[in-house]
């Protein structure tokens, strides 16, 4: 084993890549240590009685492991179910409250005639219509192709 590793080290260093050589050298040494420390993987003879006990015990271990997992899953499931129920209840309550409040009154269109809506600040409708008509005239464009965002009186 030692001889084999040395040969490999020399071969790697020959590749003139020092970091790779160091890395591989360490890896090989680690592997060697691991394999030498590794327990003998020799077949175990087992009596029929022992086999019976191992089989029953093994089957029980599988059930035990699965049972623990099942309990954990039920617990997490219960948490999520409770969370879902809470969210559902909150949603229902919200729906109920929106049903009781009167529907919001639709806003009156502010400046009919122009494309889109225009917000008026301290400007009466009549004056706004006049301003829009003047702008359209000056720009040589039909009014319905212009979009006024807002008209504000500068004081």
């Amino acid at each position: 084993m030692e001889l084999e590793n040395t040969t490999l080290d020399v071969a790697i260093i020959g590749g003139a890549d020092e970091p790779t050589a160091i890395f591989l050298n360490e890896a090989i040494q680690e592997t060697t240590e691991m394999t030498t420390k590794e327990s003998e993987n020799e077949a175990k003879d087992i009596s029929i009685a022992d086999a019976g006990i191992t089989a029953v015990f093994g089957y029980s271990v599988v059930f035990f492991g699965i049972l623990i997992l099942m309990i954990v899953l039920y617990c997490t499931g219960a948490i999520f179910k409770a969370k879902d129920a809470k969210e559902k209840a909150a949603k229902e309550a919200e729906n109920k409250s929106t049903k009781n409040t009167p529907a919001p009154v639709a806003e009156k269109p502010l400046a009919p005639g122009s494309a889109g809506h225009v917000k008026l600040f301290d400007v009466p409708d009549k004056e706004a219509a006049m301003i829009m008509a003047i702008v359209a005239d000056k720009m040589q464009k039909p009014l319905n192709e212009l979009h006024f965002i807002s008209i504000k009186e500068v004081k």
Partner: protein
Amino acid sequence: MDILETLKTLWNDSGFHSFLVDGGWKNLIMIAVSCVLLYLGIKKQFEPLLLVGIAFGCLLVNLSYFSPASADALYHLDLWDNFLDSEHPDYHSYGAILRNGGLLDILYIGVKAGVYPSLIFMGIGAMTDFGPLISNPKSLLLGAAAQMGVFLAFFGAVCLGFDGNAAASIGIIGGADGPTAIFLTSKLKPELLGPIAIAAYSYMALIPMIQPPIMRLLTTEKERKVKMEQSRMVSKTEKILFPIIVALFVILLLPSTAPLVGCLMLGNLWRECGVTERLSDTVQNGLMNIVTVFLGISVGATTVASRFLSLETIKIVGLGLTAFCFSTIGGLLVGKLMYKLTGGKVNPLIGSAGVSAVPMAARVAQSEGQKANPSNFLLMHAMGPNVAGVIGSAIAAGFLLAVFK
């Protein structure tokens, strides 16, 4: 140039000559076996992704394995014997394999080191939706119950004279989980890898023939007709937490399951977390396909005639079938118990899906349920025990590994 002498040398060196000397006829039988396996894989589509590779590996190794010392051989049985012999200088030396091995020896390192089965499990995790199991955790019990065949076959193997390691490797065939069987056998009894892998994959492919008679025998018409209620919806957060929880609990309980369960759950986490789609996609497709190529051909390489053609192989094939049948029975019996306890809400047929073999076993449960009641849809309900079976067989393998390693 002595033409006659040259012809004689050519004949002596040829594979045809080797069939006539030193038990070469056994290789001829194995070549016939590999052709049968190829027929089953290609024509009958019995687990073709793996069986075709295994069969061709079997063909290659029996064509080239004329002399153990031959430098041209693809697979060297003697190298692997030395690898396992604690008194040999090449004991556990992958360096010796890399230096002296052929193509299939080098590929087989991945099996011996347990790399391929773990990577396959990663792919399975990335392809599996654990939703049905999370929504109905009691289906886990069916996955545990269906490991009965593993332990009965283990006991049977000891009764037939196998040692503990061999019996454990044979028993795990009952888990109906190819990668787990390969993983455990490569650790405990690598000499039996060929027959065990072939038996495991063949029986998995034969599930639609093996299970239905047992299902009909153990359940009544009334039980098979049971329609199950729709399971609850599982949230994304639950699906993300599931692999973490399973990895935590199962690996802490049985550390020897870490390679299989760890990879299975990592693959599933990549699938569910929603931020690693590229990795999930690679593991499900590219990586899975590459590993399947290496796994199939290198497992096939272990079917060298001198080892494969023995009374042991016949015993393994028989015990494997017994394991499969009893695993199905175990799942069905607990399914029947659940039927009784829930007042007829659980269809016991889903218990048979507790043997892993995803999704074949679940499909069989669905088809049997629909035969009894055409409006019955058991597939999603059977998927719960089916994926639970994967976890159950990994735990069983972990237990056997902990006891016999």
